[in-house]
């Protein structure tokens, strides 16, 4: 199918499925099916496109067991759980084309993001057997900076837990400089506390000697926590449905970080923050599952500077807590700064390089509700855990 007809079918079927308010640019609800208007919009749209597919998959867990789940993947790329990290630039409009190749109905939703006409980003897609209605397109405006969780919200929260989730990160158009580095939010939006935190990084004589934070570098990691209840996987595989009302009967047996557990997560570059002393890093953490997690990091305290609720509302903090453990309710996103400081409780006279114990230093990050450190009812620590590594002293 050519791109044009692919899009057209998606757009028109969207009109049939939803049938609400007219949305001439959002191309979503209630599009009246005026082919000429549609053609105009498509002809005019020259912005970037993001094509995502939804597939039925089997996810291999840390103990080798395979469970039925759903996964997003970039079109013609292998599906992954979580879906790929989508990096958008603030101010741009993106055309999302979603194709559902799964047998079940799903939606594509990004809580907190909007179409160019200000409507919520949400399209519903029939299963692949109804091919006319299994493809949809929607325009997404990257209006605000920050981290978002794209997901299936049709039978919320079931689709998200069953694998349909991924990070969407909106970055400022140009790097915004404060102090010796960058800040991930415009200073017009960031409260004084957030600006002050990033300004202090890398300042001579401050609590953060070293560098400022560097945008668009390796100084960020996205962590999505999830948990797997194989009973739910089996039911969906057999064509049954788990209703949203059953969410309180969630009994997870596997716990993942970016789809990995234990050993796998600690050996995955995308999971393991790495750097020298004085190279601060941003952690974006989200909980796609239904268990409340309590991630705990060793070696350094972290500074929590934002939260986004499951509904998509952002709160940049005006009081920044320096903590070693943070709470992750289902569906939420937290952003934290991992300062890559010299671990503060090493005796002053025995800090590297004048020490027998040399770099690299590896420390774990794990959920402290330790039930999540298991796999299949045992096997500590093969659950929600990874490592982070200080590779050496400050290099300047």
């Amino acid at each position, binding site marked *: 199918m050519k791109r044009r007809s692919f899009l057209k079918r998606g757009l028109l079927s969207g009109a049939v499925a939803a049938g609400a308010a007219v949305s001439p640019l959002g191309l979503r609800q209630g599009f009246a099916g005026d082919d000429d208007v549609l053609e105009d919009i498509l002809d005019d749209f020259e912005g970037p496109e993001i094509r995502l597919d939804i597939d039925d998959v*089997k996810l291999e867990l840390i103990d080798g067991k395979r469970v039925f789940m759903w996964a997003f993947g970039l079109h013609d790329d292998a599906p992954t759980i979580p879906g790929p990290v989508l990096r958008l630039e603030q101010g741009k409009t993106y055309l999302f084309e979603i194709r559902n190749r799964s047998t079940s109905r799903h939606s594509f939703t990004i809580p907190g993001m909007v179409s160019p006409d200000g409507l919520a980003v949400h399209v519903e897609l029939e299963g692949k057997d109804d091919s006319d209605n299994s493809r949809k397109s929607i325009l997404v405006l990257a209006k605000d900076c920050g981290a978002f969780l794209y997901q299936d919200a049709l039978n919320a929260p079931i689709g998200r837990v069953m694998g349909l989730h991924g990070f969407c990160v909106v970055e400022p158009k140009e790097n915004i400089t404060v102090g010796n580095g960058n800040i991930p939010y415009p200073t017009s939006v960031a409260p004084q506390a957030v600006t002050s935190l990033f300004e202090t990084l890398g300042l001579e004589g401050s609590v953060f000697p070293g560098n400022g934070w560097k945008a668009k570098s390796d100084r960020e990691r996205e962590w999505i926590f999830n948990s797997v209840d194989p009973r739910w996987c089996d039911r969906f595989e057999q064509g049954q449905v788990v209703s949203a009302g059953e969410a309180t009967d969630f009994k997870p047996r596997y716990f993942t970080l970016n789809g990995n557990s234990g050993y796998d997560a600690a050996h995955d570059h995308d999971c393991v923050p790495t750097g020298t002393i004085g190279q601060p890093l941003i952690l974006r953490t989200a909980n796609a599952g239904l268990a409340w997690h309590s991630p705990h990091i060793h070696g350094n305290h972290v500074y929590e500077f934002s939260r986004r609720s499951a509904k998509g509302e952002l709160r940049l903090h005006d009081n920044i*807590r*320096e903590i070693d453990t943070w709470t992750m309710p289902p569906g939420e996103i937290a952003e934290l700064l991992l300062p890559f400081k010299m671990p503060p409780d090493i005796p002053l006279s025995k800090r590297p390089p004048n020490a027998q114990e040399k770099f690299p230093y590896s420390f774990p990050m794990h959920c402290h509700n330790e039930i999540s450190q298991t796999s299949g009812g045992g096997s500590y620590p093969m659950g929600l855990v990874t490592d982070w590594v200080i590779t050496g002293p400050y290099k300047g």
Partner: protein
Amino acid sequence: MTDIIISHPAHDPAAFDEFGCHVYAASPSTPDKLTPTKRFFRQVSSWNVTMADGKSVPFWGFKDPNVSGSDSPWPSKIIRVNVGDIVHCNMKPSKGTHTIHWHGIEPTPMNDGVGHTSFEVKSEYTYQWQASTAGTYFYHCHKNTVLHFEMGMYGILIVDPKSKTKKLYDPEEGDKLGDATIPARYPAYDAEGIWCFDDVDPRWHLYDHDAGICGEDIGMDRFEPKYFLCSGVPSNKTLTDSRTLVKAKAGSPVLLRIVNASYSELRITFPKDVLVAEEDGRVFRTNPLRGNFSKPFWTRTLNLSTAQRYSVFLDAPAAGRSCDVKTEFLHWCDYNRVQGTVTTRVLGT
């Protein structure tokens, strides 16, 4: 139904094994060893703890082998040091391997007590670290932690300020006191309460040390607590037991250190606003020299997930009056389910 498999590449079997099932165990000498200013001894021990219904449940923990009669306290004996102290703790596991992780304290990996990033202690090891920051911490075993933490292998760790007076911390140059930050009548306190909450699933307390660690399904994905305690006191005695009842002269400043050692989400409700002054061993300091981004705050409710700590200040109630604090244990998946409640008290004298 689907033939798309999201697989994970095969592991190096030896490395995989060492990560979980057969972790490297050793009894090395302490690297970079200094002369300590505070020295502690801990040995793994076990005993029974009486629950609210009178039943006796097996627990493990750390005793001080050099003090007779110190087998009894559970949770394990408090460790209290001052900012600047070089701390040594000699640990003898005695049954299988164990470790001590100094939660919230950030030493080198060798002294962090995590098997897969360093080693598990075979016969003995002396942990070393230097206390840098006043606040509330705890120490616990980090081997098969899901089980050993539930079995009670933890104790409270407090870093007091250098000044050695009853104070949460020593104000520093540049600290803003008496306005947006901690009122001038704090951070000193007259009375201190240490409330460490735990929940107990007695089914778990019958396992062996290594249970489940090499892949057996022993049901550690299910945790159904039957008992709720505060600082080792069962829920039916927390209003009167001296370990939990805080007595303070009417109107005097009281510091409550609150720790969640349970596998539940805690929802704590105070009868009036309290000042939250510290979290996870870090004071909410307002100090432009240290980065002007944190401040203490007043609240009537606190939520703590596992291993979080808070310190709050309040003024003791009038003589004979009490301030009762309600702590609810919420299920970690079914969050609206209150599994148990513990009430603790500050009594004015």
